[in-house]
């Protein structure tokens, strides 16, 4: 192996984790190669659609101003659905988006964002090689010394696997076990184009403002839910399902998702729009407890979604910000000059990634309450139906009405209390 062929670091995957890592390393003068299998950075990547901005500020203060992000999220909505009825909570608070300050979060399209971000890492001096798939690792005496790609071999002091949720590379290296069909979600999504003005009218937004809408009760009882994010000139509408439950349910996830589009509370939002893309992606649902026990071995580290850095806590889903933060942590570990593996773990703590994920670990238990996906949306719908039904007949009291709805849905007081306690403990 000649000196020219050897890099300080080879990163597999030019998603947010790999690129954040490459940016930070290249800025410090490290010789970095990023290998990306897509034709361009981002061309293999799919997100639900939201990004928390603080992470980009960790890479470079002010970098977000230049980023190809969509709309700043000003409206947080949760919708509970049962049949044709729905209940929506809409929360907005101008404090999250103060004039002249960095907005807390944006809607995002990954093919667009990742390509921009990779170009920024290139400006710092990182080499991004697209259209090349890493086939495997090179191991010498128990140490990872490089990668194999299309018959070529490339060597580095350190290889970083940033190859996403399926992480074939980290699995090959024995760091990450195969995913379980019970603790992941398969997400499907359509990009539906609409004029900016139409989106703003339908969601009550000013130009540049966006909405995030999460839906419960739209998965025919399967663990999962729907999502909708407003982009500049399109809507990301999708649905996530736990595969094991979808398989047991027996109806195609594609069909359930198509029904969601026709729901009377969703259709008016996308009416007249033109679907321009259909994507799918796996999401880890385990949060903190899904992080592999071993995030590094001699010559290799794992970052981003490959390392399980994803959080679904029901009312918001985070992955891109955590990926970037983990990439920065890995880069700082390398720059520190100490043994990179243990230094990486230390940086993950310092940068508050592991503590943040641990703090919300209980949500996994909350989201395991199965009645959340069908029964409780039905109960809520039933109660609202009682509240708003006025026919001139003598009404039953709301109290009686609630008991009736619970009985109709076979929910006992005991179950309600039990789920309540479990839910309270989880959060």
């Amino acid at each position, binding site marked *: 192996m000649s000196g020219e062929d050897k890099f300080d670091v080879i990163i597999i995957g030019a998603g947010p984790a790999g690129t954040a890592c490459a940016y930070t390393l290249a800025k410090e003068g490290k010789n970095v190669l990023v290998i990306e299998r897509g034709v361009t950075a981002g061309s*293999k990547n*799919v997100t639900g659609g939201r990004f928390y901005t603080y992470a980009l500020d960790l890479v470079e203060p002010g970098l977000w101003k230049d980023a190809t992000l969509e709309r700043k999220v000003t409206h947080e909505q949760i919708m509970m659905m049962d049949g044709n009825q729905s209940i929506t909570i809409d929360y907005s608070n101008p404090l999250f988006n103060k004039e002249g300050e960095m907005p807390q979060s944006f809607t995002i399209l990954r093919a667009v964002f990742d390509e921009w971000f990779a170009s920024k890492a290139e400006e710092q001096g990182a080499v991004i090689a697209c259209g090349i798939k890493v086939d495997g690792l090179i191991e010498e005496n128990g140490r990872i010394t490089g990668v194999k790609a299309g018959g070529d071999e490339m060597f580095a002091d350190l290889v970083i696997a940033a190859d996403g*949720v399926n992480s074939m590379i980290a699995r090959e290296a024995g760091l990450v076990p195969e995913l379980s*069909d019970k603790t992941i979600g398969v997400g499907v999504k359509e990009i539906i184009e609409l004029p900016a003005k139409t989106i703003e009218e339908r969601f009550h937004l000013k130009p540049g403002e966006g909405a995030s809408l999460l839906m419960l009760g739209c998965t025919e009882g399967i663990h999962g839910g729907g999502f909708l994010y407003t982009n500049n000139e399109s809507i990301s509408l999708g649905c996530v399902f736990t*595969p094991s439950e979808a*398989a047991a349910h027996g109806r195609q*996830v594609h069909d359930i998702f198509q029904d969601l589009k026709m729901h009377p509370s969703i259709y008016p939002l996308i009416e007249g729009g033109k679907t321009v893309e*259909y994507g*799918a992606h796996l999401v880890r649902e385990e949060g903190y407890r899904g992080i592999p026990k071993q995030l590094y071995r001699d010559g290799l580290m794992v970052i981003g979604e490959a390392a399980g850095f994803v959080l679904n806590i029901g009312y918001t889903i985070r992955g891109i910000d955590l990926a970037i933060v983990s990439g920065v942590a890995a880069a700082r570990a390398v720059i520190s000059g100490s043994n990179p593996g243990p230094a990486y773990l230390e940086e993950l703590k310092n940068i508050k990634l592991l503590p943040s994920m641990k703090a919300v670990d209980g949500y996994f238990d909350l989201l395991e309450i199965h009645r959340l996906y069908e029964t409780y949306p039905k109960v809520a719908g039933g109660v609202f139906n009682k509240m708003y039904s006025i026919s001139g007949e003598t009404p039953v009291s709301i109290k009686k009405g609630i008991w009736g709805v619970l009985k109709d849905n076979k929910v006992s007081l005991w179950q309600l209390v039990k789920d309540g306690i479990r839910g309270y403990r989880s959060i």
Partner: protein
Amino acid sequence: MEAAELLSLNRFEVDEEEPHIVLDKEICRTKCKSKPCLVVCPAVLYKLDKNGDITFDYAGCLECGTCRVVCKEKGITKWEYPRGTFGVSYRHG
């Protein structure tokens, strides 16, 4: 919209020489009763033919990995990402 119609909106570069997912249909037929791939593949690429055999076309694959994860009987004998530049290319993502 039908899955095929949705897939037609995407940009694909199909690797005619090397399929990235390969099945042993004998295993699918004889060992796998539940056939979860039929319902969990977002692109609906796994289907049953008249004889009850699985048919599969890797050309419209969205590369999500769900089929690999649910395949307990190992009817999927190879699951890799397509070779560099091949497969789906998202323009929005």
